[in-house]
Every structure is written in C-alpha cells, then in structure tokens.
C-alpha cells in the first residue's frame, strides 16, 4: 500500500510531464507553420508532425482555427501568419479525424476567411464524415462564386455519400481550366471508396481528360483493394461493397478471399459485390446462406440478394429456380427476395408455391405476390383466405388488400 502511495505521485508527474510535452510539441509545429509558406515541404512536414501527435493535439488545433484565439496573449499582427497556422491546423484536424472539430471547421469555411483557410476547412469537414449540419453547410458552399470552393465542397459531400453536387466535379473535369481540372482529379483521388462509383462512371462517359480520370481511378481502386486486408472490419466491409462494378480478376480474387472473413458483414458485402459482377462464388455464398439454419445468416442473405437483384438483376434465374428447391428454407427465402425486389416475372412460380406443403413457404409466397401486386394471382390468393394455418390466412387477406378492390 505504501509503495502504491509512492508510485501514484510519480505516475501523475509523468502524466503531467507528458501533457506539457505534447503542448510544447504542438507549439513547435505551429511555429513552423507560421514560418513557412503554405504547401512548402517544411510546412507540410509540420502538418504531418501535428497529425502524428494525434488526438492529444486536437484541443490546441481547434483553438488555433478560432479567430478569438488571436486576441489577447496570442495576438498576431500579420494576417498571413494566422492564415498559415489556421490552414495547417484545419488540415491536421481533418487528418486526425477529430469529429468534435466539425462545427468549428464548418464555421471557418465561410467567406470571411481566406481561400486557403476555407479550402482546408472544407476538406477537413469532408474527412470527418457525414453529419446533417455539415451537409447543409457544404451544400451552401457548393454554390459559392469561387469554382475551387465549389469543387472542394462537392468532393466533401461525396465523402459524405451525398452526390447532390457531383455536377461541380464533372464541370471542373470538362472545363477549360487545367488547374481546376487537376485539382478535381487530385481531390477525387482522395475520396477513397466514396468516390469510386463516380470515377468509374466518369471513366466511361467523361467528354475530356479520360487519361487523368483513368489514372485517378486506378489509384483509388488500388487503395480500396488494399483496404480489403485492413484490420478495421468496417473498412474491409465498405471497401468490399464498393468494388461491385470493377470487372477485374484480381479484384474477384481479393473479394473471394473475404468470403472466409471472420466478420459476417464483410463476408456478405464481398459476396454481394461478387454476385453483382455475376461471379459464381458470391452467388453460391448468398444462396447457401439463404437456406442456412442460422436465421441471422438467412436474414442477411435475403437483404443482400435483394440488393443484388435490384442493382444488377444477375440472380433472377437462380432465385426463380430456387422456388423449386427441395429445401423449404431455400424456397421461402427466394420468395422473400423476389417479393422485395418486385420481380414480376416470378409471379407464376410464386403462385405455384401457394399450395406448398410448408406453411412458411406459403405465407412468404403470399407476401411476395402482395409486394409484386400480381392481379393474375387474385383467385389463388383468395383460395388461401381459409388456409388451415392462421398466418397464411392473414397474409392472404393482406395480399388481397395490396391488389386492391379491382
């Protein structure tokens, strides 16, 4: 106990010492920001240094982007010096992913600040991820008079899965301004899996700068494929799901490896991407899950097969065939997917299931027919109103309501 009492102050002192060291280190890097032109190697190194300090530096960095900070003891005579500090601090906050800084950064993205400051704040807001307030602010800046501010805002929105300002990126890439187009490409290279679908689309239909777009696409694709092996399962999952249109054998192989991933969601996202690209491994995985004893796996299979069917239609044949499977779970699951994806061509096969021996298959067929709103099924649905299984009878009533009185 006595030893403990002796150790506690020593630990506290060490901790306090570490705190002051971090503060001093931040001060040193901020001094380097002030003393070097924005984007110069030394300035960039200082930003890297702040990023390396990580979250313990965030409080000081947030302070340095606030105009109030430059009053009192921190008063600075030179606006350019403040610009260098604020721009570097804002970029570092974005790279540190300090989400609590989002509101402060949003407030410094307005016209009262310099272009470099605004661009850094907008970029960082995009890095911090989606929130409703940030999206609203970025949408306003996506209509700014300055095309570069518009471009950065559009790219930040893309990183928040909001594609409302994509036209700004397209305009920058199609326009005569080489510098702006270069910025558009470099910004899109930083969008990770969020920007991959747009880059793929642009690589197919952009009227100009196709080489640059292809190069940006290759970089982003390579990054996303690398992320399939990341430690963070959410990163593996999102990366796997975005590779659903990259027809590349190497990508197929990488996704197939994920079918054995420890995370359920990673496995299903990889399988869905493979299935959308008509790859047997993915389709088989999802159909195997559809008749698995584990209900969670079955629910996931229904969800992802529905997505695949809706986006690519690549599993329609297998789904209709599965309605005749010997396994009731497979018939039941396939009926659910066909109903949720509203596959009208499946209505006759679904009508055939209304006489199935398994009650769950019958009621899932009724739900599917109700979702599809197949009028040709009315008589057969009515025949189930007095089914011996009460759930089946209930869904027969429900399906008739979906068909309407006519």
């Amino acid at each position: 106990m006595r030893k403990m009492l002796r150790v506690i102050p020593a630990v506290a002192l060490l901790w306090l010492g570490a705190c002051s060291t971090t503060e001093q280190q931040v001060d040193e890097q901020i001094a380097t920001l002030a003393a070097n032109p924005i984007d110069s190697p030394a300035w960039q190194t200082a930003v890297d240094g702040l990023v390396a300090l990580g979250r313990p530096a965030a409080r000081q960095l947030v302070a340095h982007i606030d105009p109030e900070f430059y009053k009192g003891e921190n008063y600075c005579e030179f606006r350019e010096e403040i610009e260098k500090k604020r721009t570097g601090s804002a970029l570092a906050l974005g790279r540190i992913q300090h989400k609590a800084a989002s509101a402060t950064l949003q407030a410094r993205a307005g016209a009262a600040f310099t272009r470099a400051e605004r661009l850094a704040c907008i970029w960082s807001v995009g890095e911090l991820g989606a929130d409703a307030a940030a999206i609203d602010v970025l949408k306003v800046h996506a209509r700014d008079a300055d095309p570069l501010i518009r471009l950065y805002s559009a790219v930040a929105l893309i990183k928040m899965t909001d594609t409302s300002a994509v036209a700004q990126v397209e305009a920058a890439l199609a326009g005569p301004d080489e510098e702006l187009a270069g910025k558009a490409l470099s910004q899109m290279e930083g969008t990770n899996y969020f920007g991959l679908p747009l880059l793929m689309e642009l690589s197919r239909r952009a009227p100009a700068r196709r080489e640059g777009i292809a190069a940006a696409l290759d970089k982003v694709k390579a990054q996303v494929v690398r992320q399939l092996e990341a430690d963070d399962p959410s990163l593996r999952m999102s990366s796997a799901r975005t590779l659903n249109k990259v027809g590349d054998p190497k990508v197929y192989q990488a996704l197939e490896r994920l079918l054995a991933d420890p995370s359920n969601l990673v496995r299903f996202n990889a399988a869905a991407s493979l299935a959308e690209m008509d790859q047997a491994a993915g389709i088989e995985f999802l159909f195997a899950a559809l008749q698995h004893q584990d209900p969670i796996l079955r629910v996931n299979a229904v969800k992802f097969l529905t997505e695949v069917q809706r986006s690519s239609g690549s599993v329609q044949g297998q789904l209709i065939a599965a309605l005749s499977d010997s396994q009731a779970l497979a018939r039941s699951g396939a009926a659910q997917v066909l109903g949720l994806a509203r596959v009208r061509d499946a209505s006759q096969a679904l009508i055939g299931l209304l006489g199935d021996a398994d009650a769950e298959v019958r009621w899932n067929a009724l739900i599917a027919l109700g979702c599809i709103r197949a009028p040709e099924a009315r008589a057969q649905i009515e025949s189930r109103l007095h089914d011996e299984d009460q759930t089946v009878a209930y869904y027969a009533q429900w399906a008739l309501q979906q068909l309407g009185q006519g």
Partner: protein
Amino acid sequence: MAFRQDRHNMMSRWFFPCLIALTLLPLVPALAQETPETLLIRQALDNDKFGRRRGEVDLALSAFAPKLVVYAGGRSADPRAWQVLHEDLEGFRAAVGQELRGGRYEIERQVPYIHVRGKKAIATTLDSGQVVDRAGGAGRAYRSECLWFFEKVEDKWLVTALAQEIGDELPAPATGAQAGEIAEVLRDEEEGWEQGSAGGLAGLYDEGAAILDAGGLLRPEKWVLLLGAGEEIENWLARRLQRIRYQLDRQLVYTHVSPGGGEALALTRERLNATYESGPASHQLERWVLWTLSRRSGSWKITNAVYGLGLPQ
C-alpha cells in the same frame, strides 16, 4: 351583464401589459446584444448625460476615475488634431462645473458602439440637442461625438479617458515640432522590438496599458481592444519575441504634451517586418499607430497604443 363586466376587467388587466410589450418589441434585437457589462457602461454614460441635463456636476462625474485624461478631438478623428485638454479629474471637474453653470444642456445621447474586453471597454457616443444660456436664455445647437475609455474597478465601470468633440473635419498640417522625451520613449520601444527584449519593452508600458486595433478605420466605431488585461501585454511580448525577429522603421509624425507635462499623445507611421526562427517566411505591414502616454508614475509610460489607424498612406 356579469359577462360584460368580466370582459371589461380582463381587457383592462391585459391592455397595458400588451401595450408595453408592443412598444418594447422594436428594441428586442438591440437588447439581445446587451450584456450585464454593456448595461453597466450605459448606466455610467447615462449618469453623465443626466448630470449635464440637470446641471449636477457630481452626478455627471460620478463614473469618472480620479486618474482621468481628457483629450480635445478638434472635431476630427485624426489624432493630429487631438490635444490633451485635462490631465486629471479636478481640472475636468472645474471645466464641467463652469459649463453647467453657464448653460443648460438639453441633450439626447446615442451610444452607437460599446466594446468590452475583460475589465476594459471603449464606447462611442453622439450627443445632440441644444445648450441654453442660463443668463440670456439663448439656445445654441449642440452636437458632440466622443470616445470613452472605461476600466472596471471592483463592480463599477469608471471612465479613465475621454476624447471629446471628435468628428470628420480635416486637421491643419502638423507643425513638425515634436517632444523629444516622447520621441525617446517611442524610439526605446522600437529598439525593444528590434532587440527582442520583452522585459525592456514591457517596462515602457503603464501597468493599466491597453493595445487596440483600429482595423484600418479612422473613426473609432469598430475599434477593438486586443490586449490589456493583467499581464497580457508582457506575456504577449514574450510569446512574440520568443521565435520572431522584428525590424521596425518608425517615423514620428505628431506629438502633443499637455501644458502640465503629465500626459501626451503621439502618432507614428511604421513599417514592420518579421522573420522567423523556424523558417524562411517573412511578413510585413505598414501602419499608423496612435499612442497615449503618461508620466504619472514618474517616467513616461505608454498608456494606450491604437494599431492600424485608417489614415492615408
């Protein structure tokens, strides 16, 4: 009948509160910007106004600090027209007493700007109305723009300096005569920056000194207090001079020392250049600076520095 009586009672109960609320409604945005401190400052300014209206010197001066400096603005915001009018409260009291004995001040006061930072504040006022001669009864139009400097002592805001009768008139060209001792203080200040001597520089500033930013404006309606609370100036100097080397090219344009020799004003034009220990960047700026100085403590000390005055290049 009972119903009519109830309705009458209800109307009379609600009519006046509603009327007052409607009357106050336009004031809501203005009041929204008020803080307890600005309300106290308005109260201090009201005391001066009501004292002048009633001819009560004690009421008029109830919010003035004993260490008071009053500058005559010469109907200009350009400090080259400014002079020290009174260097203590007693001199000012005698002058106000004489004014109020001679005339009745029928004035209204607007307070367009109040800026508070810690225990210091500045405010501008615009008085208009007429002064009626107590002997002859003749009235003359009265209009006066003032800049007020406040300091909070305990719970009370006290006026520490007042620039009276500022305006838009252009001053006559400066005579060129400059007080040598003021020039010396400002030269020492310049050297302090160049030598990186935070301690030496801090010693040139009065204990209650403040540094303000005029933001490129000549008129004081948007001036802000930058530094002045506690040891802020000393700490700021230490921070800036730790990693930055300054070069100053200062030209003394105008000085004025009060007849009593205790207070002074100066205007400088200066070019500032900063280089940094941690990199090759250098920053420059040119600015006008208004200085106020005092010799109350024995030697000349800077009491206020207003950076970035909006005078032509």
